[in-house]
């Protein structure tokens, strides 16, 4: 199992908190909406990923477990 970040773009309002809290994997586009680096979050960075998830004011960011293929 690996951990992937998901953005629900219907919920996301582009607050930008996630990119502040987890710049290693999240940057913002020209309009302030997050672009998440594809692929699993390395375990060394999971604490930061979880902080970004908890910090999202719109509850739009989640971590999903994906079965490795």
């Amino acid at each position, binding site marked *: 199992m690996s951990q992937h970040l998901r953005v629900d*773009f*219907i919920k*996301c309002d582009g607050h930008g908190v996630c990119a502040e809290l987890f710049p290693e994997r999240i940057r913002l*586009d*020209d*309009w*302030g*909406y997050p*672009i998440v680096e594809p692929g699993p979050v390395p375990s060394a960075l999971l604490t930061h990923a979880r902080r970004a998830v908890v910090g999202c004011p719109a509850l739009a960011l989640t971590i999903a477990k994906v079965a490795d293929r």
Partner: protein
Amino acid sequence: MSTGAPSRAATDPTPPTGVPRLLGPAPAGFADHCARYGPLPTVRSRSERAALVEAVERSTLLGRGGAGFPAGRKLRSVAERGRHTIVVANGAEGEPASHKDAVLLTHAPHLVIDGAIVAARAVRADEIIVVVDRENAAVCAAVDSAIAQRSGPGGGHSDVPVRRVGVPSRYVAGEESAVVNFLNGGPAKPISVPPRPYERGVRGRPTLVQNVETLAHIALIARYGVDWFQTVGPLDESGSMLVTVNGAVARPGVYELALGMPMPDVLAAVGGTTDDMSALLAGGYFGNWIPAPAVTGLVLSRRSFAAAGGSLGCGMLHVFPSRACGVRESARVARYLAEETAGQCGPCVHGLSAIAGTVETIARRKAPRGALRDVRRWLQDVAHRGACNLPDAAVGFLTSALTVFADEFELHERHGRCTHRDTAPVLPLPDRADRDWSWR
């Protein structure tokens, strides 16, 4: 020929050989339809249900709505979720340049309903909802009349109620989560998945959303068997396919063609091209441009088009004449897609509008410095960042336009020049004045 088909009574009509299968002479009504195609198998017992799902899986039938998802796998995923499910026959057809679902529903609505009935039995559904574009009066009338013909005594061999619902005529309204959202009383806008409709759909029930053409093929697989189905088309994506051919061809329209047909034969079947073709737009505005020299080597199949970097999508093929400007036409479509955003996802709302605006400045030969570079960057940024695939439609369409019409784009942007004098619009788009702008 049909060695594996179920045994058939001597009085049953012969299954069609070759093509057409769906668009033969239009049956005059339900009785005529039954005489033409023979009785629909019952699909009642557990083993009959399993056999139907397995037959559709083995048939290699791919969904005809655009995504090409294996029809059998979708059927199985709903069948495995128990009883009291719902079947949605999706004929919303939001693609403005595609008419094949409308033609099928006016021509052979009973075949679609048959397919929905056997699918409903296979997944133990309590209800069938036929979803159509509410702006298309002919389609609404044809479906209503077909349902009415079956409601009388002995009229439908269906114990599952069938009703018709008209959805707003918007580009993304036919996306399956949007259909479900609308049927649940919401706007016809896509919703975030998962849960997908097969898990939680109409009224929270597992819902099979299947394109109407897919269901019509399932109706024939149920009757005549897998071996019959595979007598047409390649063995990995068998059957015939409805295509909408338009642009610079002698006889534009909806055709039923055998999958695997070489593209030169497809063009010959529609009367040949009437103008020099610079590119083929395949799969509608959800699709891609394919340069003319690459077209001759293709065959009509998802696999062949995918190998060429394109997609067959809903089967819309537009023969684009070299007298028309690819930059200007791409700008028109970019604007249309931007206007059809459901307005829910930031990257789509802002990204598609920025992309359309900048492509329009390029087309008008008034591009600011770095316009093409911005468009390329935005296209990379918006990909896969929406609840539905509308951003990806724009990405696929424009990325291929930037490749196929690369010289033209460069000439417009850098040098403010266009080699085309003909400015009449070419690609079919709905008139802004009488567009359905509502989501409810």
